[in-house]
């Protein structure tokens, strides 16, 4: 069922996993072409980390089959491990070792000789902007630095498939953008990236294909554009003090008028240019809205649209830990 065709990085059918009575994965199918970024999108407790753990051979599945780069995760785990790199949500660095020592440790475990190991460590320290901090114990690093070191350690062995499990959770906006750029660079090098995230924006920015996971099942799959078509798009919301203004605005701009609330919903992405144009058109008609706000769909909207409920409840979240 999970036959390897060249160009397939991950193939999985019917993956199931339960802990006691709690079903974490309820039949997950995946088919990820090599060299692409695939994003598993879902709230806490949806089962994203469990999928990563099964595909990265950390735990076994209760049912279903999965192969990674042509190797069965259950029966050829050693071959899978040799080809993948995992950067988890919880940092996997050795806090007592310095940044450089952490990288050297990885290099030794990948059986690089001393000279090659040193060169590889230096190269990655440079690439991840950790040269200055290289001699300090990793325990003293900031969150963003730890995450970068973590990813650098994953890359020491030049994996062909990288699992990034919520790589930006808990990071400040600048570090998050750094991680995005790093991810794009990886893809440019031909690496396949399996990304889990709870941020729609992140999946949108990075992924070629997105699968939405909810309560252990995939509820939607497609490109970001395809998924967005199924979600109420972003729009500009205008509020007026009187009905005549609302009516003339609706005539000029179109959109959806709510005569009770005196609001008008106009489709649009809220970019500066389109806002300026929109306001310009209102201005020529001498219409002055009381209030203007830009509404963009977030993960909750995606969930509401795709599953009919808001993101998973707290019980599921606890159970996934």
């Amino acid at each position, binding site marked *: 069922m999970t036959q390897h065709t060249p160009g397939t990085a991950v193939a999985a059918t019917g993956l199931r996993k339960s802990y006691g009575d709690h079903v974490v994965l309820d039949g997950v199918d995946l088919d990820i072409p090599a060299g692409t970024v695939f994003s598993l999108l879902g709230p806490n407790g949806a089962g994203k980390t469990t999928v990563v753990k099964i595909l990265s051979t*950390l735990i076994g599945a209760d049912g279903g089959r999965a192969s990674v780069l042509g190797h069965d995760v259950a029966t050829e785990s050693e071959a899978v491990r040799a080809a993948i790199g995992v950067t988890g949500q*919880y940092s*996997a660095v*050795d806090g007592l070792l310095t940044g450089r020592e952490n990288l050297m*440790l990885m290099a030794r475990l990948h059986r690089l000789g001393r000279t090659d190991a040193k060169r590889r460590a230096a190269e990655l320290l440079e690439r991840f902007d950790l040269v200055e901090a290289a001699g300090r114990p990793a325990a003293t690093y900031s969150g963003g630095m730890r995450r970068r070191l973590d990813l650098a350690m994953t890359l020491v062995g030049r994996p062909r498939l990288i699992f990034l499990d919520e790589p930006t959770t808990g990071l400040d906006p600048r570090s998050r953008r750094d991680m995005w750029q790093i991810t794009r660079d990886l893809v440019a090098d031909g690496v396949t990236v399996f990304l889990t995230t709870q941020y729609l924006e992140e999946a949108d920015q990075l992924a070629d294909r997105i699968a939405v996971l909810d309560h252990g099942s995939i509820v939607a799959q497609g490109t970001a554009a395809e998924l967005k078509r199924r979600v109420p798009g972003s729009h500009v919301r205008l509020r007026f003090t009187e009905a005549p203004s609302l009516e003339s605005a609706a005539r000029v701009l179109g959109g959806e008028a709510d005569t009770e609330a005196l609001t008008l919903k106009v489709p649009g992405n809220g970019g500066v240019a389109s806002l300026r144009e929109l306001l310009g058109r209102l201005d020529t008609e001498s219409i002055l809205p009381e209030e203007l706000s830009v509404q963009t769909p977030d993960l909750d909207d995606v969930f509401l649209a795709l599953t009919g409920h808001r993101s998973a409840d707290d019980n599921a979240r606890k159970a996934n830990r």
Partner: protein
Amino acid sequence: MTTLTHALGDSATMVARQLRHMQRYPSLTLTLMGMPIVFLLLFVYVFGGAMGAEGASGNRSDYANYIAPGIMLITVASAAQGTAISVAMDMTEGIVARFRTMAIARVSVLSGHVVGSLIQAMLAVAVVTAVAVLIGFRPSAGPAEWLAAFGLLALVSFALTWLSVALGLVANNVESASNLPLPLVFLPFLGSGFVPTETLPAGVRWFAEYQPFTPVIETLRGLLLGTEIGSSGIQALAWCAAIALASYLWARKLYNRDPAV
């Protein structure tokens, strides 16, 4: 053949990691040495006069001679407690999850701990023995006996360390990992470590005579002070081999199960 080479190479890398940890976090090693030294000073200076007077031979220095082997064993057990703590700490960190998803010899994570702890324990034994000599321990051993005594202690340490690795793996958190091996530290007290077993009440004496630490203590005492060893030597070796093998198999089984989520 390459599998074995890889296992050895990966284990060596992991041992280097443990030694680096020891160097970065020396307080753990010092704490582990501290307890047996406190016991040593306490017993020799507080109880030594009275205990020496009660026993056959008399003075404080004789009592120092009598308890030194037991103290050395406590040192090894105390170091083993440190192993359980560091294994449990490791398991709570993401780094071991990383090791598990890498194509490395799986046993190397554990053997790194074992060899690292063995080095730590032998270092602690050397320090504690030196303190004992400073306060009146006068062994009669020649170089061969010393070598044999340290060899036996290394063997005991190897066995107890594998046991501690298993205890560190079975513990859910660092606190219980530090408590589980605690009985090991007190076993020498319920043996021939501090008083001759003949002086103990019947039930305790039976336990004292058959528990694994007693033949080890008797063998050490024989090697270092020239007392009768008899069958204690072979019993000590058998106990070490049995504990090491059983603990290794247990630890390996615990490590290979799916990690808790």
